[in-house]
């Protein structure tokens, strides 16, 4: 084995999360830094998202995915931040020893001072849903289809049914229509779309693509290539198909947009504990996992709707990792029992899951998803049973991540033990 390199900060993944973290850490003075990316270019999933709608928050203009990625890639290049593409990280040890492989450099090991996990997420495959039927050709995830169409000019199908109305499903419904394919329906199990409202309007309504809510695909037909699917309405309470509502749709392709799973194989190898709900690492307000010196941000932490939020979150991770490198012991009091943050009524997947002491910064950035659609809702934050904050929202849906900034002045950080966030329908 060649000599083990030592690098202060190793960032795994060169998507928007990894790049924003790298730029923030660099600008704050961390110049022993390396971004490792398995693809041949930086930019992550954005490279295949050629639609617009990115960057409204960060750059105050509408960019396409590659344009948005390019802004960060240029920042990385201008600063001369070291990165290595075509490099797959294979393993991270709990002691932060990173093993990676690439055609250019072979197998290398790097001892990292701190690590930022920024590996993004992957799509749930058909098997995860156990949709009955044949295992024929013509079934793929929407992200795979997006890559084929946008990066390789290949057409996955001509008569298409899309299962799942998450953002990628919606965007691909429009994209497939625009390349001349016929999208017959977008089928959604829940009584609401899990995508952003603007995408439902711009990608389905504008193209007369039917959105079948409370429906699912119950069978897949076709020996060799897909010939059709059977859909059915589902019971609102049990989500089981209602007999008698079956309908056959003849099609050659089924695209699946049935959920994204944070890609945490490496996190597990490092010994990081994951949340059952977000399927991402458990972190504190500094995005530090339960393994010392290992941070997480972007889609590997929890699936985001907007890349702008990914960039903001990841910049915080970059700064926090650098602070940790400079002072791993942390300020006085950091060994005290942290404050736990819990999902309350109507709340799923709150991040961070704990607040380390001393409680900084002055505002705690909490994100979560409501478990259903709520109109005239109130977000209520409780600290040890006492309500410390209420915020009204006209509408909340699981498709849009909710954010509350909790000022630490609202409670006594020294004595607080548990923060719980609820979503309630306003009286």
């Amino acid at each position, binding site marked *: 084995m060649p000599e083990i390199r030592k690098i202060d900060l190793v960032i795994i993944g060169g998507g928007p999360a990894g790049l924003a973290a790298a730029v923030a850490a660099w600008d704050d003075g961390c110049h022993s830094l390396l971004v490792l990316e398995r693809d041949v270019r930086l930019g992550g999933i954005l490279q295949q998202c050629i639609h617009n709608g990115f960057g409204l928050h960060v750059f105050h203009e509408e960019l396409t995915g590659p344009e948005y990625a390019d802004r960060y890639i240029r920042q990385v290049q201008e600063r001369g931040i070291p990165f290595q593409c075509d490099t797959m990280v294979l393993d991270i040890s709990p002691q932060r020893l990173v093993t990676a492989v690439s055609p250019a450099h072979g197998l290398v090991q790097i001892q990292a001072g701190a690590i930022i996990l920024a590996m993004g997420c992957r799509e749930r495959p058909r098997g995860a849903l156990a949709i009955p039927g044949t295992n024929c050709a013509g079934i793929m995830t929407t992200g795979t289809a997006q890559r084929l169409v946008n990066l390789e000019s290949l057409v996955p199908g001509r008569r298409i049914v899309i299962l799942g109305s998450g953002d990628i499903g919606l965007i691909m419904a429009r994209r497939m229509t625009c390349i001349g394919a016929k999208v017959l329906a977008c089928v959604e199990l829940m009584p609401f779309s899990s995508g952003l409202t603007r995408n439902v309007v711009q990608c389905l309504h*504008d193209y007369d693509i039917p959105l079948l809510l409370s429906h699912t695909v119950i069978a897949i037909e076709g020996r060799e290539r897909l010939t059709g699917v059977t859909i059915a309405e589902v019971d609102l309470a049990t989500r089981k198909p209602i007999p008698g509502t079956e309908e056959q749709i003849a099609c050659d392709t089924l695209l699946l947009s049935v959920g994204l799973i944070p890609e945490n194989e490496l996190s597990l190898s490092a010994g990081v504990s994951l949340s059952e709900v977000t399927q991402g690492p458990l972190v504190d307000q500094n995005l530090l996992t339960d393994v010392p010196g290992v941070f997480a941000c972007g889609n590997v932490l929890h699936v985001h709707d907007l890349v702008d939020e990914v960039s903001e979150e990841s910049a915080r991770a970059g700064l926090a990792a650098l602070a940790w490198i400079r002072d791993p012991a942390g300020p006085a009091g950091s060994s005290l029992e942290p404050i736990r943050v819990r999902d309350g009524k109507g709340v799923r997947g709150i991040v961070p899951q704990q607040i380390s002491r001393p409680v900084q910064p002055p505002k705690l950035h909490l994100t979560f998803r409501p478990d259903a659609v709520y109109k005239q809702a109130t977000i209520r934050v409780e600290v040890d049973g006492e309500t410390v904050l209420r915020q009204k929202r006209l509408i909340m849906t699981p498709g849009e991540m909710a954010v509350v900034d909790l000022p630490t002045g609202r409670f006594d950080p020294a004595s607080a033990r548990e923060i719980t966030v609820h979503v309630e329908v306003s009286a």
Partner: protein
Amino acid sequence: MFDVTIIGGGVIGAAIARELARYRLSVVLLERKSDVAEGTTKANSAIIHAGYDAKPGSQKARTNVAGNALFEGWCAELDVPFRRNTSLVVAFSDDDLPGLEDLVARGRENGVPGLSLIDEAELRRREPNIGPKARGALLAETGGICCPYELTISLATHALLNGAEIRLNTPVTAVRRENGVFVCQTPQGPVASRALVNAAGVYADTINNQLSEDTFTITARRGEYLMLDKRFGPAFQATIFQMPTPMGKGVLITPTVEDTVILGPTAEDIEDKDDVRTTAGGLDQVLRVAALSWPQIPTRHFITAFAGLRAHCDRNDFILGEAADVPGLFNAAGIESPGLTAAPAIAVELAGQVADRLSAGKKDSFKPPYATRKPFRLMNQAERETAVAADPAYGRIICRCESVPEAEILEAIRRPLGATTLDGVKRRARAGMGRCQGGFCAPRVLELLSRELGVPQTELTKFGGASRILCGTLGEMPEPQPRAGQERTGETHA
């Protein structure tokens, strides 16, 4: 004219081909699908049964026990995975305990070594995840697991290296015997031979009944399965069977040699011998019944579901050997479970019979199996380093779930009997077998297949025939109809 034609490239046909290749005989294997192991052999429980199950005195019992004894050696020689993980037949009520003793007795009669009864405490010590109703079990120490398609590909390749011809995409549409010569009709023309081995799986009755008066009927009996992510591989060490009860045969749970977990199968007779669909009812039943063995099945972590067809024969046993009324016709028919286990025994026996019939002796030299390299995912650090240093294509990981480098995909395509389809690559290199089921690597594998085979990506298939992955290129698409909405023009067409 060949000496021997084998119809069917499942584990049985491939094993017979390999054994026949030891003799001074010209051998051709005809397989209708685009690859070997595309029939029942790719979709079963992959258990190397101990042999306590089959009726004493039956062909099943005899070849099961003999096949089990040969299996480990065969897998070692071919360098394919095998694990003697033991089998447990679990009784889930005190009433079922006596049944276990009957199984032990039957097993002893069949000549199965290493059978014993274990009590509840010992069972729980071995298998902490077993359900609360478990009361005790039969332990079969010779039970094992293997990888049926890898075994079959290796066997067919070994046969190929020793002179046998393997013709894929070659369905036998009719067969007759004329002046002592067998003629198989195929779309590519007739194939003539002195002897014929019928290893056509669920279609073996069709082949036999065209030639022999002694007809039989094979019914396809479908079994459905669910497969769990490899994270749950350690949930059980042994293969867990449920003691059959008047309520049903139960379903099994087993680790695979690739560390995933299989749950199933169901049993349903079906009309259509190609219908390998899974059904809502079937998958529900698997889950419901398996919960007795494992109450906490992690249902969020299934990676795939599949079904296989048992070739159930109306004679309730394997039909092995030369047909009484057709000299030179050798049947290996009705090979339902434990056919995989029995394959080595069946192959040695049938090849011997065929060679005797044709008075053929063994060749002087027999080439060793195709040398495979240890997969990257199983290499240690030093081995990986050496591999990447020697070939940079080991440094580019194509399948992230199973850590399959480009070098192994290329090898899967370039090797003898190389992959020509996406599933072919999957079965040889594991790319696309993991938890994302090819979502990430499929486009990359298509690129490599296209480059290596010199075939446009749009022509490539999942498993041959009409199973095309793609429907064309952007340039070939019709103009979209005008719509109210607008995607940024300019990017619409590439």
